[in-house]
């Protein structure tokens, strides 16, 4: 399974070469946005120096959901069934709270069949990174519209989508999400910064990444094509991720630059590109997203963050160690306890 490391030039703070974070060879179409995202993901874990063994990859069904096979082969992966990844992830991360969980899903997997579980995952704020590789279609089943397809968007067949697009980000923010961002598979810098921020966040970190399907939804008339997104991309901020050990930058003007402090002490630094957008204002974010949707803009960047929303694992008051490997004596009460219970039933 895992590739063995050659003497690589660049290594991270663990002394691991990026090769140790690689996955199997992709079987997706050449040029598929999903492939670029896989690269960004593994780079992020590499840069953060997180051992691949500490990462658990989960996914549903779809081209997007296949991608965990294409990055970080040294991490355990669970490719489940269509639309039910959130429940698998919730269970896995309760069983072992020390894992870095990352879920990879598609727009159909999340917004169509999976929206029920998505809603409840967000409500619980299960600590994990949740990446939606959003191409507006069902790639794996050959290009039917998904629930995120924009009204008016067309298929090659000429079919036109009439239903309103489900905006996973707006939905999550409305539901009380603690970290919500949108990016574009083609925007290397922004996506990398957001991924690192998402990984460092403690809670559900939603990343809706527009990721064009070159085979079924990259044509003229599609609002999820490379061309359209490049054209209508409205970045809210210029983003950079600042590791914990780095000093707070002295010279920045709070009017134009802000920082979001993350759980592990690192920060996301935002150089505002849009006047007056405040990613800590839930209602404001919703208002702006509705406007963007109406205008056909693709609003990208950190849409909302509230690191103070308690993570589900904290709410449950679990022990620090993984429940999965607690020794027998800590999970099976002693004989006397049973005898006492039996007494009480006499």
């Amino acid at each position, binding site marked *: 399974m895992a590739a063995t490391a050659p003497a690589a030039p660049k290594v991270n703070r663990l002394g691991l070469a990026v090769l140790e974070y690689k996955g199997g060879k992709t079987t997706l179409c050449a040029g598929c946005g999903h492939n670029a995202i896989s690269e960004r993901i593994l780079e992020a874990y590499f840069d953060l120096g997180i051992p691949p063994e500490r990462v658990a990859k989960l996914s549903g069904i779809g081209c997007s959901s296949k991608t965990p096979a294409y990055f970080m082969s040294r991490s355990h992966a669970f490719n489940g069934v269509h639309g*039910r990844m959130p429940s698998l992830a919730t269970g896995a991360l309760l069983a072992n709270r020390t894992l870095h969980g990352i879920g990879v899903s598609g727009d159909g997997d999340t917004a169509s069949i999976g929206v029920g579980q998505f809603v409840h995952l967000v409500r619980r704020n299960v600590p994990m990174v949740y990446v939606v590789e959003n191409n507006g279609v069902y790639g794996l089943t050959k290009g039917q519209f998904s629930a995120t397809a924009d009204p008016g968007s067309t298929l090659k067949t000429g079919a036109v989508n009439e239903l309103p697009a489900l905006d996973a980000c707006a939905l999550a923010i409305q539901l009380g999400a603690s970290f919500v961002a949108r990016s574009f598979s083609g925007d290397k810098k922004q996506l990398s910064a957001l991924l690192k921020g998402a990984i460092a966040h403690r809670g559900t970190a939603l990343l809706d990444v527009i990721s064009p399907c070159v085979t079924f939804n990259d044509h003229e008339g599609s609002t999820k094509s490379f061309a359209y997104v490049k054209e209508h991309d409205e970045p809210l901020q210029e983003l950079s991720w600042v590791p914990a050990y780095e000093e707070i930058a002295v010279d920045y003007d709070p009017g134009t630059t802000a920082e979001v402090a993350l759980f592990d002490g690192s920060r996301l630094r935002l150089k505002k590109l849009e006047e007056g957008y405040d990613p800590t204002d839930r209602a404001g974010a919703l208002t702006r997203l509705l406007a963007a949707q109406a205008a056909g803009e693709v609003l990208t960047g950190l849409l909302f963050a509230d690191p103070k929303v308690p993570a589900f694992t904290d709410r449950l008051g679990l022990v620090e160690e993984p429940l999965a490997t607690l020794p027998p004596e800590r*999970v099976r009460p002693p004989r006397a306890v049973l005898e006492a219970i039996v007494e009480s039933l006499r």
Partner: protein
Amino acid sequence: VAMNPESAQEDVAAVPAGAAVVYDAPLALSGARADLLWYPVPFDELVAPVTGEARLRKLLRNMVYVGTLARLLDLELPEVERAVGRVFGKKAKALELNLAAARAGYEHARAFARPLPFRAARMDATRGKIIVDGNAAAAIGSMFAGVTVLAWYPITPSSSLAEALIAQLKRLRHDPDGKATYAVLQAEDELAAIGMVLGAGWAGARAMTATSGPGISLMSELAGLGYYAEIPAVVWDVQRVGPSTGLPTRTAQGDVLSTALLSHGDTKHLVLLPGSVEECFSMAVEAFDLAERFQTPVFVLSDLDLGMNTWMAEPFTYPERPIDRGKVLGRAELERLGGFARYADVDGDGIGWRTLPGTDHPRAAYFTRGTGHDEASGYSEKPDVYEKNLQRLARKLDGAREVAPAPVADGAGAAVGLLAYGSSDFAVRESRAQLQAERGLATDYLRVRAVPFARAVREFVAAHERVYVVEQNRDAQLAGLLKLDLEPALIGRLRPLARTDGLPLDARTVTDAILAQEGR
């Protein structure tokens, strides 16, 4: 007990000194002997208010003395009523009359100044016994099994199992600093509940859920994933009456067949069939050991009667066997082995070795999937790879036949066999007594406790000319599973006796059905 004018005198003469005589007051027997304890009961007087029908009175007199004896033996009235309920359960009117009669007898007996001398002896018999419902027993068992994750969605009659478990965990599974050694979540529905359980089981937790019929149906797709990706999970199905929403507050055994075959494709499951509250406790423990040993979802089929009604039972015994986590490779083993293939049948039992996420070794990881896979868990469409893997899965579950709870046999040498499971046990045992007592029909009895079936099940069928398969559903579901499993020559011996109307099975129904078929 002397109620019969003709024989009363002789009966009384025959009894040993110190004996107690409950007699019909009008017979005025108490003068006959001084060395006896006399308990006069004015049967007619007591029965009169209960019914006007002379025809019924005679029958009800018996019920009156049942009540009287119960009181003398210091039984609790509710216990008596439940017993009566079980007998007349189906005939609402009869039930009511008999309950009234029993109560009358019970109340009358309160008046006796002189208690029974052997009342104490009777108490010894019940002393040590406990009173508990099956769901609570299952909850206690699950806690002692070391459950670490419970994901559930409320549904009658399984909710009280989850709620009892939550209460136990809250009480007993917190560290001094208050931290919990377990996680409980109320899922948004049953698809999520089984998903959470599979995710947790995959990551190494002892995870369980409890539900009933509709929930089982919703779990179909993920149950297939659990089977094919080989993930431990424990699922309690406290059965109620189906199809669909059916009768949520009535009992049945209607999910046996669909649960054993739950999910599309060639999917099969390991099923446990507790037949008492004691077994709700013990099987709760065994279920986890089996799930982890065989790396597959285990379904425990209880029912409303067993789960929600309280029963008198033997005290639960502390699990002797240490927890069996099954085949799990840790860092050290991986170091030694230099790697592993998740689905390789290295031990010849069809069970591969797994690793848990987070295992600190570069070769610990594997890719879990519901798609076709080779031994190294890579995607494969190769015909032979697919077929070999599917055959291994079949072999793996066959291995459970002699490991899962063995059937319980009673009696030997009779030509007629009774085969049953779960909460039918109560009625079947009583029915056997009736068959013996009323028509001298001797029967052997085998209570099945798990699917796939142990060899002993086959042997029991082979050893009897006729085997009545008693169950509480319409379609003779366990008989069906037997047909799918037994060699054709033995199938002819099966005599399905399946019925369901929502009430607990009563012995009389079983007895009459068997007598009819036996032509007695």
